[in-house]
């Protein structure tokens, strides 16, 4: 009977048995470091931190089960195959057999990551949750210049660009965009899909630079995985709109780098022409014929389309497709820029605005070929410009800076354009991701915006029987934040003052009647006495309630008060600074 024994050096239990270092993992899997890195990235395996690092603090530890999981991955075999194949190619080249090398390169084995995506994200919602990083990475690579040194090919960059445009077209079409924030790093967008908030960052239209401290090989592996993921997600999303994916775009528009516009037209066209297409498919047998015919159809449809009028098309689309459920927010966003026509000047961030404006229901055009309408169109309501002074000014339109659009989008109302006119420094661009009430400090411009929002809401929803004051009161409460004891005291003080003033008035009346003036002096002192009284009353009230509480609750209450005090102190600090700045400026 063979005795069951443990091989020398293998631990039985504990942290030593559960975690292994990177070198041990490499030996176990029999791969080299690059391959191991790629596998980990693609499989989603990351190093852990055990409580006790058996081999030292300077090693990277992986869980034994993760490594065992890697070992059973068929992609590992595929990678090894590719490696051996490349050895063959290298051998052929070394033997000066160019013909063979070329032949071999054409039949190189490839791999696909579809199965891994299905494994890592079993449901669509899981994939949506992980979409942040994916989108940011793909958007980044869409603007990077191709480089031989980093093994970044032109084809790859174009693919990324295409994917980003498809995603943006979908979000525009479904009006899923909610927040935009322009920062130094780039432009942050937040959209909401199926209850998931997806945030991503897009770089500015500036030439990106390859830095020394970034390992681009690793980033490229991530990109590979994320490209596939985004392609599948786009497919699913377009599928839900009954639009064929991958989209076949008008080549003329593509050449003019107006991809987004072309895509939006494609979506609108294909969703309108869906009823017609199946007939075409059924008639012809071969696939290539099919495609040509459908392409022709599409091109016809697109020419038939009136120039970019998403407003009009919306009704048509709603008839043909299944009803796209719209919730309150989507409706608000859809109608934000309704009936407004925008024209973008050349120096304005075109791609970003071409994405944002249709997402909120507006119609856009720009300078250049293939644009829906020209600069001298009469019905343009707003001309977006970023120069210090506008050249030729049309009187029928407003010339604004691009920040106006972003601020309107964040506030969900059309803000007054006076502050954003050409040549002025616009008011500060606030971040929509910050909850002002929670911070306790509301910047001035935010308050202005709030008042405007309240005003807009008043006009839009006239409340019967409810006066304007009631609407203002909750707003006031919001402004004030938490009701504190000091405010109570103030309120009491005010009341007392009012009472005192009334009294004084009566007294004065009496005075006039009796014509004696000595009564005035004691009134004043009484007032002063009543003020501390108010404070005392407030204090007494507070004491009463604290006495009734249990010790635990009292301690909690005191802790809460300390927290509030800290917040107030920081807010006061900010206000003092503001005062100082104002004084310094004036």
């Amino acid at each position: 009977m063979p005795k069951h024994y443990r091989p020398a050096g293998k631990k039985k239990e504990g942290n030593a048995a559960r975690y292994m270092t990177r070198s041990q993992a490499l030996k176990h899997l029999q791969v080299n470091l690059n391959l191991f890195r790629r596998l980990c990235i693609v499989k989603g395996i990351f190093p852990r931190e055990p409580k006790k690092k058996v081999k030292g603090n300077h090693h990277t530890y992986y869980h034994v089960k993760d490594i065992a999981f890697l070992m059973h991955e068929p992609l590992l075999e595929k990678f090894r195959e590719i490696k051996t194949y490349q050895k063959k190619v290298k051998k052929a080249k070394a033997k000066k057999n160019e013909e063979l090398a070329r032949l071999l390169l054409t039949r190189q084995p490839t791999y696909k990551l579809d199965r891994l995506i299905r494994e890592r994200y079993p449901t669509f919602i899981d994939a949506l949750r992980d979409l942040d990083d994916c989108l940011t990475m793909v958007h980044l690579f869409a603007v990077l210049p191709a480089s031989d040194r980093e093994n970044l090919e032109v084809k790859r960059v174009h693919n990324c660009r295409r994917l980003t445009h498809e995603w943006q077209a979908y979000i525009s079409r479904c009006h899923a965009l909610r927040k935009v924030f322009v920062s130094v790093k780039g432009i942050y967008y937040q959209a909401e899909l199926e209850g998931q908030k997806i945030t991503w960052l897009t770089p500015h239209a500036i030439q990106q630079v390859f830095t020394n401290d970034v390992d681009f090989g690793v980033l490229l592996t991530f990109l590979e995985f994320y490209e596939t993921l985004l392609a599948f997600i786009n497919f699913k999303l377009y599928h839900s709109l009954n639009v064929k994916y991958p989209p076949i775009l008008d080549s003329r528009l593509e050449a003019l780098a107006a991809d987004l516009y072309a895509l939006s037209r494609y979506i609108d066209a294909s969703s309108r022409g869906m009823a017609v297409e199946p007939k075409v498919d059924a008639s012809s047998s071969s696939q290539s014929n099919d495609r040509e015919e459908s392409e022709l159809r599409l091109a016809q449809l697109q020419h038939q389309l009136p120039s970019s009028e998403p407003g009009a098309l919306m009704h048509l689309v709603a008839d043909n497709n299944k009803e796209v459920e719209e919730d309150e927010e989507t409706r608000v966003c859809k109608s934000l820029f309704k009936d407004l026509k925008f024209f973008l000047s050349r120096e304005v961030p075109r791609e970003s605005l071409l994405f944002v404006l249709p997402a909120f229901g507006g119609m856009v055009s720009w300078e250049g070929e293939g644009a829906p309408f020209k600069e001298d169109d009469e019905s343009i309501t707003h001309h977006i410009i970023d120069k210090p002074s506008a050249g030729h000014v049309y009187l029928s339109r407003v010339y604004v800076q691009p920040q106006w659009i972003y601020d309107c989008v964040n506030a969900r109302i059309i803000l007054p354009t006076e502050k954003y006119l050409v040549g002025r420094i616009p008011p500060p661009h606030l971040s929509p991701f910050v909850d002002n009430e929670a911070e306790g400090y509301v910047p001035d411009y935010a308050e202005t915006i709030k008042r405007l929002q309240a005003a807009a809401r008043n006009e839009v929803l006239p409340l019967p029987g409810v006066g304007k004051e009631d609407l203002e009161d909750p707003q006031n409460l919001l402004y004030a934040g938490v009701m504190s004891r000091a405010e109570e005291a103030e309120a009491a003080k005010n009341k007392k003052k009012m009472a005192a003033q009334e009294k004084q008035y009566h007294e004065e009346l009496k005075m006039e009647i009796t014509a004696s003036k000595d009564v005035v002096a004691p009134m004043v002192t009484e007032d002063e006495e009543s003020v501390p009284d108010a404070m005392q009353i407030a204090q007494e009230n507070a004491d009463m309630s604290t006495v009734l509480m249990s010790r635990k609750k009292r301690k909690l209450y005191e802790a809460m008060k300390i927290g509030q005090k800290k917040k107030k102190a920081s807010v006061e600090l900010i206000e003092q600074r503001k005062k100082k700045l104002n004084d310094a400026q004036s």
Partner: protein
Amino acid sequence: MGKKSKTSRKGKKAWRANISTEDIEDFFEKTTKDALSGGNLSGAPSEDLFHVDKSHDLPVRRKIEKHRERVLRVDSILKKNPFVQLVPSSKPKLKKSKKTIVIEEKTPKQVQKNVGDDSVMVDLWGDDVKGEDESNPRKIFKKPSIIPAVEIEHPGCSYNPTTESHQDMLAEAVAQEMQKVYKTELGPAPVPLTIEGDSLSEDERYFLDVDNFGEGEDNVLKKNPFVQLVPSSKPNLKTIVIEDKTPRQAQKSVGDDSVMVDLLGDDSKEDLRYFLEVGNVGEGEDNEDVENEVSEAGNIFARKTKRVTRVELNKRCRQKALRKKVTKEKAKEKILNEIDSLPNILEEIAREDEDKQNKHLRRVIAKEEVLKIRPPRLGKYKFEAPPVQVLLTEEMTGSLRKLKACCTLARDRFKSLEKRGILVPSKQIRRF
């Protein structure tokens, strides 16, 4: 142990003795037995010997299964009471149902091999059945960190921020820079790779050599009786040798005088040798002292200690007993004291426990808080936060066109991956 020892077969006697005839004897025994019992077994037809068992008996159970079915004594006792619900303490392993169905479903989803045909894409989540893979928790991937993938920046990083938030962000950026500055300033001075020094010329080296035998250093060395200054043959090297006096031993005789003489004698023999006296050893001292001193000088003599008298021994015993008694009494008193102050001790213990618990809690919370900011230490190098991207006051123009945007967004993505613990931070310089 079981093998038969190979004995030699030389010689007639040996030959006879060493051949075993066991097999012949066995054969004879067997045949006689068969004859007596009624036939050879191998000759018998198989039907007589075997028959196929068609009964449905219980199969032989594996030892492990038998073991598992055994009920613990505890459980058997509990079972006797009908009102007690049994919770069996030994649970047999649940068989994990193999999901072969899932694998079969996956194959039609594979995209076709021809790379150029992009139109053949399948909806990966098309026939999504909810909760399909819940039984296989390995497939549900956990996120490595609670830090979100895309972190929104502070409002002060806006391209046109409010003054207050901008000041806040500037303060943070300045703090980051100042930390670096302080680290270099206040830390220990780094060890320099090279030190500036003048090279010595040969003449100077000679002077240095001479210096050793000059007056200054000598006095210090003279005080130590065992140090002998020896210039070696090479002018560059100086050696200070501490010699043991072994070469002297050979010439040593019992009396001290001769020792002295020898030592002095050696001295006179060689040039440039400073020899330091051992110490004034007078002639009138005890033999023992001289011997002790001589032994101090390093000689290994058999040490003769003083003879211990009975008086001395008794004294020692008495003192030892006394000491024992004192320590015992002290220990007893201590225990009594401790018993008296027992409630105090209990209080102290309770306080210490509470302190420990609080400390532990604080540490756990601190660790969790830290995890929200940076990743745990995963490798050799620490994670270094990227610099805050904020506009300087002079760069703030409020115009989108003139914005000096960040052109190293790749670094931001890379650092985000490191921060979440997916990548391990590695060497600073990556390429050249």
